[in-house]
């Protein structure tokens, strides 16, 4: 079941892109879960290019996926990543009480990841697979209404190592 790191990279990077926060997000709702006010630009289908650095004997490479983002119940956003070799789903929400963004993911490799963020830009958490956990971090940037970017890193051997740099564009 163990997958190549490239798959991990594509997974985490592309999925996390579905969480990019609008610069003018409105977090002022009274209670419960809510998404940033101006997240509508995220909804729809995105074409993603994921640049993977050389790592662990593997050469640098580029992967491509389709990212589909839709509104889901409980004021959350659902992101679906699809490629011929890999599929994943994630949900993202905002906890009004703790003022924390959350992001959870499951995929075809059996990985489950959970991350949180206070600013909606830098997400940190853990990834679990085969009974082992690894710290994960995503830094997400909205470049424009039709371009978003995410840089994914894993903490291995006490150091953050960049796994992927993903950019998605909207047709």
């Amino acid at each position, binding site marked *: 079941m163990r997958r190549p790191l490239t798959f991990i990279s594509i997974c985490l990077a592309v999925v996390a892109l579905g969480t990019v926060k609008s610069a003018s997000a409105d977090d002022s709702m009274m209670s419960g879960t809510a998404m940033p006010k101006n997240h509508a630009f995220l909804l729809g289908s995105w074409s993603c290019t994921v640049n993977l650095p050389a790592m662990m004997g593997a050469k640098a490479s580029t992967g491509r996926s389709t990212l589909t983002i839709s509104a889901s*119940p409980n004021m959350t956003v659902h992101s679906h990543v*699809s490629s*011929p070799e890999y599929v994943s*789903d994630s*949900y993202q929400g905002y906890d009004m009480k703790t003022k*924390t963004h959350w992001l959870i993911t499951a995929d075809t490799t059996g*990985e489950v990841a959970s991350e949180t963020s206070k600013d909606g830009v830098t997400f940190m958490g853990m990834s679990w697979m085969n009974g082992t956990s690894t710290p994960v971090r995503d830094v997400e940037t909205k470049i424009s209404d039709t371009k978003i970017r995410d840089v994914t890193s894993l903490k291995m051997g006490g150091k953050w190592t960049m796994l992927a740099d993903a950019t998605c564009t909207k047709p």
Partner: protein
Amino acid sequence: MDDAGGRDLHEALMLRSLMVAALACVVACAQPVHAADVAPAAGAAGAPGAAMAPNLTGAMARWRPLIGTWTCAAGTSGGFPVTLTILTAPGNTLQTWVRSPSVSAAGYFGYDDATKAWWSAYTDSLGARFFETSRDGETFTGTMESQQHSMTIRATTTRLSATKFHTLTEERSGAQWVKIADNTCTKS
């Protein structure tokens, strides 16, 4: 999620138990399969993954009867109906979608040749996720977590007919397993 977190987690448990139910009925539900019986062309309407991957092979082939759409009622939550759709996915896995008016969920299921165990990964719009494993494909155990809760759960499935199965989901409470959900699913 706070106070509502209990309800949220409970509802999440209902949904995830449906997913485990579908996946855990491999032994109970699996029957001899012929290629004509399992044409995987019909994807879930509206589901992003409507284009299905190649059909299951090896150990996963026994799950083919599960592919399709199921209607389920969760017995301990007022019987709210949900739709469960199961598709093939890359990597010789199954992709599962659960939809109800208030929650959506997605999960994946596969077989690890190295450990000879079935695994199930799940996530939903309430912020819950789990990873479970099973040695026999009937009883799955693992940990389910939300933003505020964590619990050890077990799901056991019984086949009622070729198109109907029941699943009991329990939570570990000390040395005891306590029932928290039961579901019945019927294939459309």
